[in-house]
């Protein structure tokens, strides 16, 4: 391993080093000097405390570093430093690019065109439907979906991408051996099979609250555009939006009801930046420079009379099973199977409380 790569990875072993300190340390030593062996004798007053320096000296033996690398390798984690050819070019553009990305999965995704899909952790039926709709279309246009593996919009975005055999990258706030939230452990595992999970932090570092906004900077940095489908007034997705603006990425926000708490954030974005409004996936894709005609539309499914009747009825807003049953006068025994068939064909979506809406 080249010395300059080793230096970056070695410094990442110490969680107490901030981003700025690491950059500073790297600039103090010449690029081909092994920091680990030089640190004991170097004068670093003002940058490191005595205690911090002692901790680092304790880890300076080459065999300790080799063991560390081996463990990472056994965990199927590959560190991609900023000097690596595989490091995403788009991420180098930002003013504070991560020095190293710890990756597990398909590295080819790093240099594909990406769109971030983020939003609230507490999403409503509306958020589910909209997120699915946009992600499906973005996948068809061959964009890689980047999100943060959180509950809510993030999970829906990753899952919809997987279901549609699209590409997806999950950016974690902590090290790759600390999946947060734990309920998404299996999702993370599935993503790392054919897609990619990555983090700026070394594998064993536990996520801290302040690291989530920092993670959002990578999400924004990796992506060509950031889509926010549903976000409350204090959602973390707003951080991602700030970074996106900072880095000159396009932002898109889906409008919601003004009475809805979970759409307050997106509506505010639209108020502040009116051009960010997106009213359907097609309009977003065309503004991303995708030729709509090139995207293969799924052939329209032939509907029979009853199916059309149901579809017209639930076109605008969700209806419960009982309402559909009374309106269409189809007996419950038949309607049940019919609705599932339509759901499997992707025409309608089933929501909580036994209700349905057009996809």
């Amino acid at each position, binding site marked *: 391993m080249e010395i300059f790569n080793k230096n970056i990875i070695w410094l990442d072993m110490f969680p107490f080093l901030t981003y700025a300190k690491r950059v500073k340390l790297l600039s103090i030593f010449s690029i081909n000097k092994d920091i680990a062996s030089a640190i004991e004798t170097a004068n670093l007053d003002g940058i490191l405390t005595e205690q911090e320096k002692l901790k680092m000296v304790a880890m300076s033996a080459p065999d300790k570093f080799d063991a560390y690398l081996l463990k990472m390798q056994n965990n199927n984690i590959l560190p991609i430093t900023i000097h690596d050819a595989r490091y995403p070019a788009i991420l180098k553009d930002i003013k504070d690019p991560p020095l190293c990305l710890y990756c597990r999965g398909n590295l080819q995704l790093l240099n594909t065109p990406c769109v971030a899909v983020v939003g609230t*952790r*507490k*999403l409503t*039926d509306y958020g589910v439907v909209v997120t699915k709709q946009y992600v499906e279309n973005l996948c068809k246009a061959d964009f890689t979906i980047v999100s943060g593996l959180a*509950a*809510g919009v993030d*999970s829906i975005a990753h*899952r919809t991408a997987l*279901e549609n055999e699209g590409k997806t990258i999950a950016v974690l706030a902590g090290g790759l051996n600390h999946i947060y*939230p734990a*309920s998404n452990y299996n999702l993370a595992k599935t993503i790392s099979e054919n897609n990619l999970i990555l983090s700026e932090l070394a594998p064993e570092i536990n996520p801290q609250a302040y690291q989530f906004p920092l993670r959002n900077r990578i999400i924004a940095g990796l992506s060509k555009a950031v889509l926010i489908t549903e976000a409350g007034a204090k959602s973390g997705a707003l951080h991602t939006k700030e970074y996106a603006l900072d880095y000159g990425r396009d932002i898109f926000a889906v409008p919601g009801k003004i009475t809805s708490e979970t759409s307050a954030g997106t509506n505010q974005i639209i108020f502040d930046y009116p051009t960010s409004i997106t009213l359907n996936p097609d309009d977003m894709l065309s503004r991303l420079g995708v030729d709509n005609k090139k995207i293969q539309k799924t052939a329209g499914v032939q509907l029979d009379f009853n199916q059309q009747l149901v579809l017209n009825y639930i076109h605008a807003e*969700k209806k*419960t*099973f*009982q*309402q559909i*049953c*009374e309106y269409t006068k189809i*007996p*419950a*025994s*038949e*309607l*049940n*199977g*019919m*609705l*599932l*068939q339509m*759901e*499997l064909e992707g025409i309608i979506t089933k*929501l*909580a*409380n*036994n*209700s349905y809406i057009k996809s």
Partner: protein
Amino acid sequence: MLSKILSFGLNGINGYPVEIEIDLNVGLPGYEVVGLADTAIKESKSRVKAAIKNSTFNYPIHKIIINLAPADTKKEGSMYDLPIALGILGAQGTLKNGVLKDYVILGELALNGEIRKLNGILPMLISAKQMGYQKFIIPKENANEASFIDKIDVYPVDNLKQVVSFLNGELVLQKNNNKVYENALSQHTFAHDFAYVKGQASAKRAMEIAAAGGHNVILIGPPGAGKTMLAKCFPSILPDMTFEESLEVTKIHSVAGLLDLKQGIVLERPFRSPHHTATLIALTGGGLKAKPGEISLAHNGVLFLDEMPEYARNTIETLRQPMEDGVITVARNAQTVQYPANFILVASMNPCPCGYYGSTTHECKCTPTAIHKYLNKISGPLLDRIDLHIEVDSIAYEDLTHYDLEESSAEIKKRVNAARQVQLERFKGSNTFSNAKMSEKDFKKYCTIDDKCSELLETAFKKLNLSARAYNRILKVARTIADLDGKQNIEAKHLLEAIQYRSLDKKYTI
């Protein structure tokens, strides 16, 4: 100065003969009971003495020794009062010689000589009949209970004096009238009927399928949606009990002292809904006397667990084994008893801790983690045994206010009975009576699907993220739906409907 008399004791829901021997001896007057009698029997001393005196008979001034055989089995209860009193009267010569030997006698005495009702008369009589005993003297209040057993002579009695005159041949007693189960059944009406449940077309349909195939169900819906009401109506669409089934249920209820003595037999499939604070013992049975628990009281009927996630986890986990076997063995210090426990489980729960997840009227305030935790309170293995997950929608105000009657339970029951008939025919000669209890071998034989259907099932599994355990359940339920439809083979539409009832198996909801 010795008399012998025959009575019965209870072990679980089976009776065993108890021979009571009474000896009057010269000596200091006294009263001694031997043969592992409990306190209630030992206390019979005072009741027997007072009853005999108050019935104007002489009480012997002798040493009275009472032996309950077999001497190594614990006996409990107050049913030996009457036989002991008659034994004493027989030993001192108030009764004619030899009149006691033909009868099995049971009854508790009041101080004035009246005879009080007992628990467990029916199981004791049934066991006695099987052992070849013919004539019985029992308390009058228990007469209805005994009237459904034919080919035995039962003499219901009021008081001690009456029994003595009867045995001495001075009085002729009417034999107990025999009643016919079918007649009683035809006069019976249900308190709850689906005709009064507004809307809920989806849930009603699912309940019909559950009744037809004997499937366990869980109702999921917001508070006030009508889950409890639906569950209460459920017994009214279950097929009527056969006489044998009814006797089994009556036996258990008689032992537990829950039998309606006016009716004498249980005509309606039992509906038990223990509160969620119920202990493990309350559900499975036990206690000092190894009494039947709620799951046995729900035998051949419905066990309703309202708000299932609120039950202590270890309490509901114990349901798993009896749900498979249909029996529960209660082992206690004094005795080990096996009670039948073949019930349909109807559980209910909210979709989240606050209850309003996905509701149109209220906003849900639960965090995803809280919802996840709540749903996880029901373990996989238990969910494995519940075939249908029914989503109950909340009802709109307009639905509540129109007064048209919906389809009645009797109508639904006709379809259920027809589907059950198909199943009885299918499983003839085996121990299975419904699709839900189908063995693995039968499953392979009767739940086959064609290529088109298996393709459909595969798509559904992928699209809906169903877990593997859903597979067998879906096919069994599809089998029942096909039976309701009168079809020989499982078709695509049956399968589609069955998949709809696996909502808790979807790997994630948020």
